[in-house]
């Protein structure tokens, strides 16, 4: 079950937000911005905290209600996927979402990089992926 998807740009701003279920609480838009900013800073600190050299930032966060998966693209954009704790195969889902992002956001000539994402085709294709998993 996929609960939510957040996309954070390289400066820590929230550029895409979508909730698919009501499995986790919905926040106000202001709180979501704070959440994105906080996560962005924590991501940096966690890589510095490592007991062994060369750690990445936080990749998976586990709570009793959900798991949050984070992947960072080489350009610094972060994809945050909130799923059910028992969801399997998240890497493959992440890859699909990233492909969708590349196809319908990055290849969109009207999209300005690092700005909030408003693309109907992106929404549409994401919904298809999510529907497949959540149904």
């Amino acid at each position, binding site marked *: 079950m996929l609960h939510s998807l957040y996309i954070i740009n390289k400066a820590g701003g929230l550029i895409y937000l979508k909730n698919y279920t009501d*499995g*986790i*609480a919905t*926040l106000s838009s202001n*709180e979501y911005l704070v*959440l994105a900013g*906080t*996560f962005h*800073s*924590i991501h940096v*600190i*966690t*890589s*510095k*905290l*490592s*007991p*062994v*050299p*060369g*750690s*990445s*930032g*936080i*990749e*998976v*966060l*586990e*709570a*009793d*209600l*959900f798991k949050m998966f984070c992947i960072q693209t080489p350009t610094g954009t972060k994809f945050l996927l*909130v799923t059910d704790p028992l969801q399997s195969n998240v890497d493959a889902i992440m890859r699909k979402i990233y492909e969708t992002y590349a196809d319908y956001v990055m290849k969109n000539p009207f999209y300005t990089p690092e700005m909030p994402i408003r693309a109907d085709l992106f929404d549409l294709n994401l919904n298809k992926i999510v529907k497949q998993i959540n149904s």
Partner: protein
Amino acid sequence: MTVYSIHIFNKKCEAIYFKQWNNAATAGSNKTAAIATNEPASKQSESASDATNNIDVDGDSETAKLVYGVVFSLKNMVNKLSAGKNSTDGFLSYKTNAYKLHYFESPAGLKIVLITDAASASMLSVLRQIYSSIYVENVVKNPLAKPNTPIKNELFRGSLDKYIRGLQNFE
């Protein structure tokens, strides 16, 4: 599988215990050394003795603060996202490609943070065990231990060290 370190914080956010195993490098240790050399000589010796007094409380205070900050923010974030749902434990752990941080909080606000390698399974039961049969038995039930102060109790230290070294994924 490896256990790297343990941090214990009291309800007032102060580090009260720290220990590391398996030659874990502390992130901020070089930084504190650099700061110390910039201070005047008198202060330097003072802070050096402070550092040796505190080394078994918070390792080096920079790292302890960072760990506390990360755990505190993640806990808040998780609580916000689980508001109104019936969540019992909240934040449990996070993982990077090099290590995994496990978190446990007692009802009284004592926080135990355990850092292991990334492949480690859930250590929730281990943390519960540390709390209930090592902390409670040796610190809470100790009439001479002041609550919420650094744990200097040899019995606690000894049994914790023994317990951690006895874990099947210690090394």
